[in-house]
């Protein structure tokens, strides 16, 4: 995965498969603590203790074995730990799941946020019957919020997966995410890396 937005898409699609009707995605940045955190919270079926204990095992999956391996969560866990961050999942059967992964903000290997607008448009467009929320927070303050349920109301009957609506969602979120990332950590520190081609 090249950027954070792809991990978010991957994790959120796990929530879709868990039967969620609402997925809340949050990116939190704490400049003082030099930390960036992503959170994906769903109201899906949740996991029992046994499944939860094995969820970060790269070869454990609850999906049909013939098709799936279960690499998405281990990828994210490894990436978070390699960037000086941490990873956690809390879940209970019937009570949904919350996944958190954090990264040291100034870590050289921290991936950029990426095309977050595209991730949200793929989720909303692929599953228009569900609701998605996105929240960008900076040092404890809300920076930007997107709520597909509110948007549906404003659209007054126009489907939320109507392509021009999806294009507008993508553009809007990308513009907001770009502005959010501009005032971020000096990402990533390039000191000592002069001469290395990006």
């Amino acid at each position, binding site marked *: 995965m090249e950027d954070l937005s792809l991990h978010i898409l991957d994790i959120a699609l796990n929530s879709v498969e868990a039967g969620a009707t609402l997925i809340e995605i949050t990116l939190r940045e704490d400049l003082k603590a030099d930390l960036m955190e992503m959170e994906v919270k769903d109201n899906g079926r949740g996991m029992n203790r046994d499944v939860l204990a094995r969820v970060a095992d790269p070869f454990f999956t609850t999906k049909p074995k013939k098709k799936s391996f279960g690499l998405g969560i281990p990828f994210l866990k490894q990436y978070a730990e390699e960037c000086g961050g941490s990873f956690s999942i809390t879940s209970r059967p019937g009570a949904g799941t919350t996944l958190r992964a954090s990264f040291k903000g100034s870590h050289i290997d921290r991936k950029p946020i990426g095309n977050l607008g595209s991730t949200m448009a793929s989720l909303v467009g692929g599953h228009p019957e569900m609701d998605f929320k996105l929240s960008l927070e900076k040092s404890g303050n809300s920076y930007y919020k*997107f709520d597909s349920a*509110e948007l549906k109301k404003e*659209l007054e009957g126009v489907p939320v997966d109507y392509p021009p609506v999806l294009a507008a969602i993508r553009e809007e979120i990308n513009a907001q995410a770009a502005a959010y990332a501009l005032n971020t950590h000096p990402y990533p520190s390039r000191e000592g890396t002069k001469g290395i081609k990006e």
Partner: protein
Amino acid sequence: MPKLTVDDLKKIKEEYKSTFTLREGGYRAKITVHMGTCGIAAGAREVMNALMDEMAKENIKDVIVTNSGCAGFCSREPMATVEMLNHAPVKYQLLNPEKIRRIFKEHVQGGKVVDEFALVAGSETSY
């Protein structure tokens, strides 16, 4: 909430209503982009985006685009399945935005399967 302006929304709503078709509600095709971890890592999101852009450009409203998990052929990702009304589904492999645009044009709009991008073609043999 997105800062989609009132004008933006108004424009979209007017455009939608002005092109409201009789076929509304009766979809003639469904395109599923496979978005397991393997698909996403291989570029499935770009394929989905290209598809949405193409639909917006052509103002298509009787085709559903959705996503699903891994199709079980990770080495062939990105993949998409095209289901046309009254026809067997076709799975396409090793896609990119350019290929999906062609599939959209030739298969979804033109009704002709793009054999060269299909995962399998031809009938079973006994040997």
